[in-house]
């Protein structure tokens, strides 16, 4: 099938649909028209796009956890607890890793084992195996909107089932759920898969049912510079919009430097709107999501609370529409419901204390925003060039050429030349910019920033700096200084 950034025809979509729904027996229970009716009957308070729009208007930042366990009743109990005790404004359903790799048979084993052992043996909720009705039980059990969060390169069947199941928001994208989440799935394939997902949402949209889409912002979660995640987020937003998506939440994973993080969220909102509108989709609503630090966490729970709070503070000061919350168990394992609620409560305390305080513009912040704008602009310009006008082709070629390069990604379709490291103030810069199409001044800017740190630490910049930075937050620091 030819990859083009062009809205799929009904025929093409429907032809593929049969095959998709046949992927696992539960696919047979998807009845699109009935699902549309189901969505139309949902109260506005359970619709993601509606709540996000409200929050954006009022300038509040919502808190959303990650959470999912193997069995339906336990999953419902978990979500209710996060809503009632944790005070979550928005809820997730995190999908297990077998489902993410379309290994539904292994997921089935995981469900059985979980029943036998009385504890979840899966790291998430296997929604495909459970099917449409189980999803609706989940949606109906809680009072706030629920989103599907996963990491699935081919998430077509998962989308069919969960959206028919009443979920109103779907995370992921053809790049962001491929490169960090797989090893040898070609980008062409996943972009096609995700065009399907977006086209499906466009189908819902055409019946007046709004499903929000959220490209996965943090990518590998580890020292990803804003220009990389911004470029991916914007490409995926444009691809989604073309298939008929009308509401997107663009994401960014906290790096840790106050100025850089605020600049990132502000430019993400701004550039997202700019590109969508310039490329012909001015009606798409753009909101933002800030992820609390996505890399290695400290094992000590008190220290984890510190990391969580600092993330919450930045989300509020930057004015992100929502924040994805970490937990005090992060470094060790999937959190208990209590630990998960604890993370939300800490976050909400900070969000609430800061909700009437915004970070005013400063020359420093302006400079950082300008850097991000220029970097992202250079990358996206080149992507469009490479695609000779077609964004989907451009994206594939950009990865081939290293014009987009995601640090530490497992995929062999990622060049992996980029080496990020923190500067002397903790902002993520580039020790090696690989094949990014940056202007001379930008390259010089990064070089000087890293050199400045090298001077302060009395060492030459090297891969050891990167390693030190990867461990740093887990060891209670931001910048990985030599001992």
């Amino acid at each position, binding site marked *: 099938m030819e990859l083009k950034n062009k809205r799929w025809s009904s025929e093409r979509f429907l032809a593929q649909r049969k095959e998709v729904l046949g992927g696992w027996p539960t696919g047979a229970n998807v009845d699109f028209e009935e699902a549309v009716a189901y969505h139309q009957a949902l109260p506005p308070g359970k619709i993601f796009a509606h709540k996000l729009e409200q929050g954006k208007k009022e300038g509040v930042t919502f808190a959303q956890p990650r959470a999912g366990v193997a069995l339906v009743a336990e999953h419902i109990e978990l979500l209710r607890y996060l809503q009632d005790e944790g005070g979550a404004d928005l809820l997730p359903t995190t999908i*297990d*890793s*077998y489902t*993410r*790799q379309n*290994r539904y048979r*292994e997921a089935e*084993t*995981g469900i059985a*084992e979980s029943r036998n052992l009385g*504890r*979840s*043996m*899966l*790291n998430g909720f296997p929604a495909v195996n459970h099917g449409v009705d189980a999803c609706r039980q989940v949606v109906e059990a809680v009072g706030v909107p629920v989103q599907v969060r996963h*990491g699935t390169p081919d998430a077509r069947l998962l989308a069919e089932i969960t959206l028919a199941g009443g979920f109103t928001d779907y995370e992921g994208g053809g790049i962001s759920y491929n490169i*960090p*989440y*797989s*090893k040898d799935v070609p980008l062409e394939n996943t972009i096609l898969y995700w065009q399907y997902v977006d086209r499906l949402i466009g189908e819902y949209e055409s019946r007046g049912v709004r499903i929000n889409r959220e490209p996965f912002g943090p990518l*590998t979660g*580890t020292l990803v510079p804003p220009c990389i995640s911004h470029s991916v987020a914007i490409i995926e937003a444009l691809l989604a919009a073309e298939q008929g998506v009308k509401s997107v939440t663009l994401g960014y994973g906290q790096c840790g430097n106050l100025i850089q993080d605020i600049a990132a969220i502000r430019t993400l909102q701004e550039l997202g709107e700019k590109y969508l509108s310039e490329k012909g989709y001015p009606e798409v609503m753009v909101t933002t999501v800030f992820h609390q630090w996505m*890399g*290695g966490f400290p*094992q000590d729970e008190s220290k984890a609370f510190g990391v969580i709070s600092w993330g919450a503070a930045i989300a509020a000061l930057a004015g992100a529409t929502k924040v994805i919350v970490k937990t005090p*168990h992060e*470094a*060790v*394992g*999937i*959190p*208990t419901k209590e*630990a998960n609620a604890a993370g939300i409560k800490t976050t909400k305390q900070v969000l609430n204390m800061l909700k009437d305080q915004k970070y005013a513009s400063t020359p420093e912040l302006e400079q950082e925003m300008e850097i991000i704008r220029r970097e992202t602009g250079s990358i996206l310009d080149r992507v469009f060039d490479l695609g000779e006008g077609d964004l989907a082709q451009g994206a594939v070629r950009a990865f081939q050429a290293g014009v987009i390069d995601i640090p*530490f*990604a*497992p995929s062999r379709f990622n060049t992996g030349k980029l080496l990020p490291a923190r500067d002397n103030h903790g902002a993520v810069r580039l020790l090696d910019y690989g094949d990014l199409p940056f202007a001379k001044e930008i390259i010089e800017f990064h070089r000087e920033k890293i050199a400045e740190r090298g001077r302060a630490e009395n060492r030459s910049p090297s*891969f050891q700096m990167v*390693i030190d930075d*990867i461990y740093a937050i*887990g060891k209670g620091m931001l910048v990985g200084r030599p001992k």
Partner: protein
Amino acid sequence: MQKKTLVLGVIGADVHAVGNRILDYALTEAGFSVVNIGVLATQEEFINAAMETDAQAILVSSLYGHGELDCRGLKEKCVEAGLDDVPLYVGGNLVVGKQDFAVVEEHYKEMGFDRVYPPGTLPDVLIRDLARDLH
């Protein structure tokens, strides 16, 4: 002295690549010859790599929680393949959730692993143990 060969990989449907990359770097720096089969590695890939390279140890990572399901039967397959004597190590976030590590260790030892490491183990510890075990 001949370099010792180690097979390194992240088992199952697990894509956590960062620790793998760092272990590769640290073990190489420490003088080992590292055969890194990367993430999303199957049991068969571990065994084939070990056989092909005549490896002195197999280092399995599992971060994402499904380790118990993914590691089951690996030792038996090693034995079948004649790799009885090759030490089998495992480390990472080996179970779903925060559990008592003594119990986890016990469980993995029963599954046939020679050494079991808790979350966040630093490369130095591994390198020290390898120096002890491989001589």
